[in-house]
């Protein structure tokens, strides 16, 4: 998967890296996870510290941090392959390896000015601060540019924000967040500005946790009441905030797809193992054509998702337009992943429904993937727009 678009063979280096991540998941994460609650979202602090140190020794810490900011400088295709491996455990869809590979912070902060980087990006990269991404509102999530009703009004050298956000992950534990607010009521997507908001400011409220099918990274509901934000905390230009949001949404779709593939690969592995072991009516499940076809359909779903996602990563890595490719990868991987987990549960019968196995958690959390980061219908809309041109939407 190097520079040649048609080369589908992993390089020796990629094989080595994938093997290292696989070993870490199987030898370190899985044994620890077996002792945790099935819906757990965190390792014990001492385990997290030990494994984070190990990942740093391996040279993989902060995978998605650009090399010029201290990241390991691994290309996107290889990071996608790693993300597929990192997801292959019970909590892996939303908490791959429980975060021991470190984070890269919010991608938009790399576009911030130097003062903002000093105050927010660098402390985040050092692990001193956490941020959240505040886009979706009660009025809608699929068309955020038009649905945003949170208002920001200029008042001297500050902006005053009023409104609310929903389905915002991590806001209750963050020191700051990127909040998108309407600064020009008459301009639709050209009237939205991105603000960096400090969560300790008066007027910032995390009102409640939104309980969903997901066990990890719960969402919260936010309210802003006369929240003052200085002009110095405007990210990018006033009224140009939607471009910042949109760029993030496209980039996120590739790792989002990769995690779905990782879960599907693991579910398929479990389904095959179980079908070879389990006897029914005097023969192994694996001898039944109904089961064989499910396993074959799983494999088709996995490989389709895999190649589309790697192709999108390859295009993005080369600096080519990849919006349609990322949307296609996200759509196919999230829908296919759901089908694979569903078939694996069917093969496991009653045990597939229990918390003894990770399948029930994957089933719940995978359902969210068809909606999160833009639902399947919006992905189709994006692709149709690109394929047909701007005049037909």
């Amino acid at each position, binding site marked *: 998967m190097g520079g040649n678009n048609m080369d589908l063979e992993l390089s020796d280096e990629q094989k080595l890296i994938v093997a290292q991540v696989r070993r870490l998941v199987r030898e370190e994460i899985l044994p620890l996870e077996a002792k945790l609650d*099935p819906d757990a979202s965190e390792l014990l602090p001492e385990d997290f510290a030990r494994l984070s140190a190990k990942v740093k020794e391996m040279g993989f810490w902060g995978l998605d941090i650009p090399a010029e900011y201290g990241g390991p400088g691994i290309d996107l295709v290889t990071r996608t392959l790693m993300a597929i491996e990192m997801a292959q455990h019970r909590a892996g869809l939303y908490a791959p390896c429980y975060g021991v590979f470190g984070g890269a912070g919010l991608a938009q902060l790399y576009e911030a000015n130097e003062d903002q980087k000093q105050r927010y990006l660098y402390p985040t990269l050092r692990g001193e601060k956490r941020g959240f991404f505040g886009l979706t509102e009660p009025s809608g999530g699929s068309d955020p540019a038009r649905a945003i009703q949170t208002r920001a009004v200029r008042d001297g050298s500050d902006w005053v924000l009023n409104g609310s956000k929903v389905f915002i992950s991590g806001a*209750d*534990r963050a020191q700051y967040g990127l909040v998108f607010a309407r600064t020009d009521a008459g301009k639709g997507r050209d009237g939205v500005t991105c603000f960096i908001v400090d969560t300790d400011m008066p007027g910032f*409220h*995390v*009102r*409640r946790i939104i*309980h969903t099918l997901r066990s990890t990274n*719960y969402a*919260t509901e936010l309210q802003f009441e006369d929240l003052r934000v200085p002009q110095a905390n405007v990210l990018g230009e006033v009224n140009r905030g939607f471009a910042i949001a949109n760029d993030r949404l496209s980039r996120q779709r590739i790792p989002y797809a990769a995690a779905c593939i990782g879960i599907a690969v693991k579910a398929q592995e479990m389904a095959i193992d179980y079908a070879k072991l389990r006897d029914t009516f005097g023969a192994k499940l694996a001898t039944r054509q109904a089961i064989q076809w499910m396993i074959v359909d799983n494999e088709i779903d996995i490989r389709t998702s895999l190649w589309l996602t790697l192709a999108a990563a390859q295009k993005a890595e080369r600096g080519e337009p990849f919006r349609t490719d990322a949307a296609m990868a996200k759509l196919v991987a999230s829908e296919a992943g759901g089908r694979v987990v569903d078939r694996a549960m069917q093969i496991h019968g009653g045990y597939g429904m229990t918390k003894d196995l990770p399948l029930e958690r994957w089933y719940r959390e995978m359902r969210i993937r068809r909606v999160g980061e833009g639902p399947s219908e919006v992905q189709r809309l994006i692709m149709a727009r690109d394929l047909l041109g701007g005049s037909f939407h």
Partner: protein
Amino acid sequence: MAIRLDKPWTPLGAEAVQRLPGQLGVFQLADGEGRILEIGYAGGRSLFGLRSAVEEARQRQPEARRFRVEITMQYQTRYRELLMLHVADHGTLPPGNRGEPIKLGRLSPL
């Protein structure tokens, strides 16, 4: 949506606990004055769900005199929410939860 667990308290005793369902969920134990001593959950590894989880908590909290439960499949996020609510209302975790290796956020509920 009400986020506080404000169901009536039930007197805590072995018989009352034995009548609890084996389902997953969250619970609170309080002393005779209604001060919450421990917030807990019955998770996927609990032997008999709320029944066994509350019984274990009863053994840990000899001062406890009352309890209440809420059946929920989202026991992990609800448990965290109840802990955060307690911190928001009282400034600290219940005595039985202090020292737990759990990272909590901040809520400012209405």
